[in-house]
């Protein structure tokens, strides 16, 4: 899932400038699940904005609307009708959602309310950890299901570096486990250490140019 968190209110206010009225568009997808941009958080943001403008003797006309997902056209019928009533949309989706909305309403300023952080999972309620950098060439099958690209601070493929601490944490932060310490431990327990004893050659990075995926059955349809 994509994890995000809200930007500081001042930054959102600054982006808005004189734009008024404003629609805060919530997203029912990932950012809703990570408690950053669902219906509740969209309404909270609208309330915070109203209060902030009020405190400064101004007035912001702001409404909220939350759709199931902001990254697919199927959910935009209502917004297509509403969008024309506003000078700006503040989206609480991830960076992809914001761009989808911006592309759909190219004449309207579409502003991000969130900073999109990473692809990760729930460690516990309200606690998320980064686990995937979407590198496009997954090595998890050989690294005990632990991603060295994401979880090693130096993205080493033949780790560990010389900085692993005595308790198995990473040199950059005593709260972060060393990915290679963990990979070694898990593969040793599985009796599969041979997977990481050979030299892994330099990789061909896949995530340097914008990527597109078209599933096989649809290729004909798109002429790709």
């Amino acid at each position, binding site marked *: 899932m994509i994890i995000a968190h809200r930007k500081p209110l001042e930054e959102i206010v600054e982006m808005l400038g004189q734009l008024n009225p404003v629609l805060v568009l919530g997203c029912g997808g990932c950012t809703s699940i990570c408690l950053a941009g669902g219906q509740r958080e969209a309404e909270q943001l609208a309330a915070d904005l109203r209060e902030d403008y009020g405190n400064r003797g101004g007035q912001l006309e702001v409404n909220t609307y939350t759709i199931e997902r902001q990254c697919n056209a199927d959910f935009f019928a209502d917004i297509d009708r509403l969008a024309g009533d506003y000078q700006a949309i503040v989206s609480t989706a991830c960076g992809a959602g914001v761009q989808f909305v911006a592309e759909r309403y190219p004449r309207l300023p579409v502003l991000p309310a969130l900073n999109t952080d990473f692809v990760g999972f729930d460690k516990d309620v309200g606690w998320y950890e980064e686990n995937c950098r979407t590198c496009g060439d997954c090595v998890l099958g050989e690294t005990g299901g632990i991603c060295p690209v994401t979880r090693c601070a*130096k*993205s*080493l493929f*033949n780790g560990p570096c*010389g900085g*692993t601490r005595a308790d198995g944490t990473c*040199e950059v932060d005593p709260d972060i486990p060393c990915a290679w310490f963990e990979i070694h431990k898990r593969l040793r327990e599985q009796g599969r*250490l041979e997977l990481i004893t050979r030299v*892994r*050659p330099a990789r061909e990075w896949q995530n340097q140019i914008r990527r597109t995926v078209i599933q096989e059955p649809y290729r004909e349809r798109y002429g790709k």
Partner: protein
Amino acid sequence: METKSGGNLEAVLRAGHFAITGELGPPRGANVEAVHKKAAYLKDKVDAVNITDNQTAVVRMSSWATSLLVIQDGLEPNYQMVCRDRNRLAMQADILGAYAHGIRNMLCLSGDHQKFGDHPHSKGVFDIDSIQLIAMVRRMRDEGKFLSGEDIDTPPRIFIGAAANPFAEPFEWRITRLAKKVAAGADFIQTQCIYNMEKFRRWIHLANEEGLTEKVFILAGVTPFKSLGMAKYMKNSVPGMDVPDHLIKRLQGAKGKKGAIAAEGIKIACEQIQEFREMKGVAGVHLMAIEWEHKVPQIVEQAGLLPRPRVDGGNGGAPAAGE
């Protein structure tokens, strides 16, 4: 003597001499005199000198440029390169340029994380890792090919070094990692500073057993303590460093006369060097006298490592002839 690089360090090691390398940290500025001053202390005292590459992720004069300066002084540089600051294009370009200017040794490192340095929010490159860098340099030298597989017009002949930390966890993995570096193409290894001799003995014993010390020259890392504060800092604040309590006690015991602790630090280092000379599998020492270059002549003398050998085929530390 047949060498891969035509350099002095390689010739000294292949001739079976106990080698010594030093270290010189480039200045935080364009202060050429500072480089020449440090180099003067090291001249004729070491077989090659490591030139660090933005060490601890702090910007300094570049490693290749400082290497060229010490060549002018008649020292042979060991050009350090980290994976943090450049991608495979920049690395290969720098390796060609370095060789063209007479650099014959390289130490291939991952590099300290940028978080520790003076630009903590820079983008770490880490396009390839240190083992992949070793393999790349070997390919350039032995196959005459770039990483891409394209041919190189006049391949660089480099004596390839790598680092090893016998003390970082997981201990049992450290020998495997050494083996990986050897398999990738490392000709010599310089270890992290050693203080825990017992643990190092276990490590070198394993390296001997695995037959690794027959394939690679291992230079044991030595850093003399300048002060009690430094020893404590190394013990408590440097990840992957292992400083036993008895050494701290020994330094504490030396308190008293001015300079007594530093003298004791040097004495400890010299005793270590003696032990390394007798240790099977150790081909030399790497003396990292950090910001203490002016003490190197004394330490090397006291350790009985002078004069440095002149080896036929090597260049006695003089700049390698261009070809």
